[in-house]
């Protein structure tokens, strides 16, 4: 079976080669050429991915009605002990294949888009090298056949994100943002690592195929020992989720995501909207059988954190003025929704609706969020500003951008027949069946989402007529083509029969729309849109009034609930001022001081006893005699 998919190895390797080529020889190449090389490489990957998806879903025999898990490639990379060894492998199963499609699509689009967007930037080839590195890492991540490989690529993804956020390395804010992103996710990864340690020592394996087998020994063995009321398995999976939460910007580890918008916009589209940030969702999905069987408690945590993050982010998004930040919070909110989907899911057949819906939403979200970001990029490209206060009435200047952006906004608002309607609806259905509170939260979030997206939309494309220094003009074709392609996907991907493709146990089931829940959600979406239209379509004083009404709430939300301040407090105050500085002081003055003290003491003592060597013969004699007598007394009378 493996031979069929042997070529799949090329999928991550091509970007790696591109990275090495562009990274080592990039400055020798012409900028344009490196960009093209990178794009062509990704194009090949794109083709291969779609081919793989086709072959996997439609041309491969199912085993007992389920999609089989195919290990296309496997080699031992590092051996810890006989059972624990890190492999490098490629695992093809429904979700990884689906992710392949997502990543290659978005990545390819971003590559094309960047040819225009990044044109003339210093370090153009570096940009493409980093993009390739990212694509390699992300593909490696999703294709991982064991949790440790996933961790490895997880880290690599983190570092490429770091490099890309800090692409404008001479801009202090970019440097800070990249640092913050790396450190926060690193902290989360610490949890991931601890989770892996616990998990692997409980189950004795890294391998997903053993780990995630519902009937497998691994799951059965792991649920024994308990610590603080929860089983070790639960703890380990909570820790693993911590890693996922970091990468996916779940509260409270989300603080890096808005700042990450300092990176070039295509990067935001690729990494911080479509692919990397959903790695956390993917991680939970990947380990879903373990979660659901060994640690349902951990899944509750996932659900609640997801729900809280989604509403938290949605509230903040309503107040932000930087369009990329609005999108960033929106991303966080949507990912929260996906987490909810996983959290409320069951296992097997229709029970696994949440899981399926979550993956579905991941797919659609990738498309429309990438579209939103790329659209935002086109806008920024035209206006040279990120702030919606400096925009308005752009629909005249940027027609294609306008249309695609509108499509994306409608999609995210969950208006049928756009794709997100289907995926979001299924999550709500699953939530309804599982936990009414979460359902209620997500219901509100749906409204808020529609509101802030259309607030954005109206502010940019309608609203006040703004005078621009340079007349904005539509982006070049390399930038608009990806927009159109993604808009196309946003519109139609909702009709993909996900329940036939991606399910918890690999066995397809019939999905259908539950109109009793779908209609109210469409309704609340429309309400949100209408409110936004009222408030922002024409320039009015309404928004200020509303803001004044909810003065404190607005202020808190506008300041992102002061999470950045908390972060600064933890790093600057606690780590720097209260731990590191005292440690450094302690080291210099106490530890080293005691070493120096020994030498000082020796010197002082040596100075003290110099009187013995007085130069006086008779004193010498006195010491001599005393010595003799003392020695005699000691040896003859005391120690004998």
């Amino acid at each position: 079976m493996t031979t069929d998919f042997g070529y799949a190895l090329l999928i991550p390797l091509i970007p790696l080669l591109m990275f090495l080529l562009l990274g080592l020889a990039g400055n020798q190449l012409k900028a344009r050429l490196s960009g093209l090389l990178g794009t062509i490489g990704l194009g090949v990957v794109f083709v291969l991915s779609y081919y793989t998806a086709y072959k996997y879903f439609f041309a491969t025999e199912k085993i007992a009605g389920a999609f089989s898990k195919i290990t296309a490639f496997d080699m031992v990379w590092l051996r810890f002990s006989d059972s624990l060894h890190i492999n490098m492998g490629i695992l093809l199963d429904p979700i990884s294949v689906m992710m392949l499609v997502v990543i290659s699509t978005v990545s390819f689009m971003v590559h094309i888009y960047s040819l225009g967007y990044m044109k003339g930037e210093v370090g153009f080839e570096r940009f493409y090298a980093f993009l390739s590195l990212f694509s390699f890492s992300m593909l490696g991540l999703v294709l991982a056949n064991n949790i440790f490989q996933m961790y490895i690529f997880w880290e690599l993804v983190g570092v490429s994100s770091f490099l890309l956020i800090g692409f404008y390395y001479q801009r202090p804010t970019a440097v800070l943002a990249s640092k913050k992103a790396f450190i926060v996710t690193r902290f989360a990864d610490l949890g991931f690592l601890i989770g892996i340690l616990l998990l692997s020592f409980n189950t004795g394996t890294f391998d997903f195929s053993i780990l995630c087998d519902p009937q497998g020994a691994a799951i059965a063995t792991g649920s024994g020992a308990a610590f603080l009321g929860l089983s070790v398995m639960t703890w380990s999976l909570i820790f693993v989720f911590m890693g996922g939460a970091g990468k996916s910007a779940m509260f409270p580890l989300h603080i890096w995501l808005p700042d990450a918008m300092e990176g070039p916009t295509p990067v935001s589209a690729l990494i911080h909207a479509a692919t990397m940030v959903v790695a956390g969702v993917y991680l939970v999905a990947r380990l879903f059988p373990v979660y659901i069987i060994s640690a349902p408690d951990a899944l509750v945590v996932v659900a609640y954190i997801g729900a809280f993050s989604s509403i938290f982010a949605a509230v903040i998004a309503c107040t932000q003025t930087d369009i990329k930040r609005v999108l960033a919070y929106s991303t966080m909110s949507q990912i929260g929704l996906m987490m909810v989907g996983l959290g409320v899911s069951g296992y097997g057949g229709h029970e696994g609706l949440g899981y399926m819906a979550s993956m579905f939403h991941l797919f659609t979200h990738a498309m429309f969020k990438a579209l939103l970001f790329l659209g935002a990029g086109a806008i920024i490209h035209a206006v040279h500003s990120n702030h919606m206060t400096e925009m308005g009435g752009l629909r005249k200047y940027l027609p294609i951008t306008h249309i695609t952006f509108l499509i994306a906004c409608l999609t995210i608002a969950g208006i049928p027949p756009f794709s997100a309607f289907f995926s979001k609806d299924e999550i709500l259905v699953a939530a309804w069946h599982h936990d009414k509170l979460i359902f209620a939260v997500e219901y509100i979030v749906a409204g808020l989402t529609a509101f802030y997206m259309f607030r954005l939309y109206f502010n940019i494309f309608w609203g006040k007529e703004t005078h621009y220094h340079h007349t904005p003009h539509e982006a070049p074709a390399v930038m608009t083509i990806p927009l159109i392609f993604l808009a196309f996907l946003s519109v139609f991907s909702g009709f993909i029969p996900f329940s036939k493709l991606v399910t918890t146990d690999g066995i397809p089931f019939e999905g259908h729309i539950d109109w009793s829940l779908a209609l109210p959600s469409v309704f609340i979406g429309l309400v949100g849109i209408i409110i936004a239209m009222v408030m922002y379509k024409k320039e009015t004083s309404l928004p200020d009034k509303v803001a004044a009404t909810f003065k404190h709430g607005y202020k808190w939300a506008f300041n992102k609930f002061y999470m950045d301040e908390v972060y600064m407090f933890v790093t600057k105050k606690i780590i720097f001022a209260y731990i590191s500085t005292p440690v450094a002081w302690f080291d210099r003055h106490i530890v080293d001081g005691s070493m120096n003290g020994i030498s000082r003491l020796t010197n002082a003592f040596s100075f003290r006893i110099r009187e013995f060597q007085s130069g006086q013969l008779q004193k010498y004699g006195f010491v001599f005699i005393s010595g003799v007598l003392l020695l005699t007394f000691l040896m003859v009378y005391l120690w004998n």
Partner: protein
Amino acid sequence: MSLQIFSLMRHELLLIAVLLLILVAEIFWDPARKKNIRIFAVILFGIITLLGFLPVPEGSLFGEMYIVTPVRLMMKNILNIGVLIVLLQSITWLGKEKNSDKISEYFILLLSTLTGMSYMISSGHFLMLYLGLELATIPLAALAAFDRYSNNSAEAGIKLILSSALSSGILLYGLSMIYGTVGNLYFTEVAGLFTGSNLALLGFIFFFTGMAFKISIVPFHLWTADVYEGAPVNVTSYLSVISKGAALFIFIIVLFSVFPAISVVWQKMIYVLSILTMTIGNLFAIRQQNLKRFLAFSSISQAGYILLGVIGGNELGMASVVYYLLVYIFSNLGAFGVAIAISNASGKENIDDYNGLYKTNPGLSLIMMLALFSLAGIPPVAGFFGKFFLFTAAAEQGFFILVLIAILNTIISLYYYLLVIKAMFINKSENPIPPLKSDFPTRLALTLCVGGIVIVGFASIIFEYIRNMSFGV
């Protein structure tokens, strides 16, 4: 006198012969050519040194008053090598005008002390030991006071002779008590009859301290620094190496062969004294500026380390002490050799004066560095091996704490040795000692030292050779 007696006693007899020859030369030689006596004496002594290595049977003479064993012979030979180096180093100094009228006296005094030491090492009776000790001390006082026009030299002389008189008085008192309790003073008989009675112990301890004075063990060491500083450099080097070495040799022989019955007692004493000796020696050495005084204290602490071999009380202990003395002779004479060369050329004796020496005199600096490293026990030079064996000897008896203290002390000593190295290699100087060209004897002496420092360690055959002839309690 049969040939056998001659061959057994050849060190001493030859020495006396040379001594008389020099006396005769002094009387009959043309005053204008007196300086040649230096060469004459050194060559004669070189011959003695070589002859000393001739194989010889063991034996005793004069009714066991004079004993020759391979290890005692080895000790004498080691001393001879050291003296040869000292004599070579003295040639330049003796050539100076202020010493022109006492060249042969220098040799007579020096060789007579060596005669005393040789007899002392071969002694089989405490009287011989005492006389040898005195013969090794009294002329030395004169040597210390050799420079008639220097206050320090005179002070050194008087301090040496008076304190040694005190110490030999105490030693004699102790001997008298041993005599009183045992009945005679032949080594073999004392060894058999010695009892652990209080009076005998008192006698032993008085005797012990008298020896400790010669080896400059703390607290009987206080004369050392002043005498070393005041005496002319060549005499200091002789004092610090040869005189101390000879005393150590007979000390260990007496302890091992005469007093094995109370080894527990003297091991305890040495335990305490060695810690005191190395620590105090080191603590004083830290602050010294005068190189001679510095080396004096360093040699005190060296004595402390050597006691670790003595405390071992076994074959290995003796071998390690003898071996270490050999190493110590080369190392210390190497250091002194450099100091002498510089003192002769510039009259400078302070460590500060050595600032920037490497720039102007790289050869001398390197030799000094090697010598100091050897003294500090840094591999791969011989001092490391020497110290290692000393520590091994003590460790074999289970004195691990003592070994630990000793090694920690070597760190202090490393500190001050490094200060000298720092002065030579790192410090900058406004007016460094100008490049100097030493004459042949000095070079030869330094070459011998360097050769010894480098080879004695690696060439395991030397240690094995000494080891094979050593004996323990």
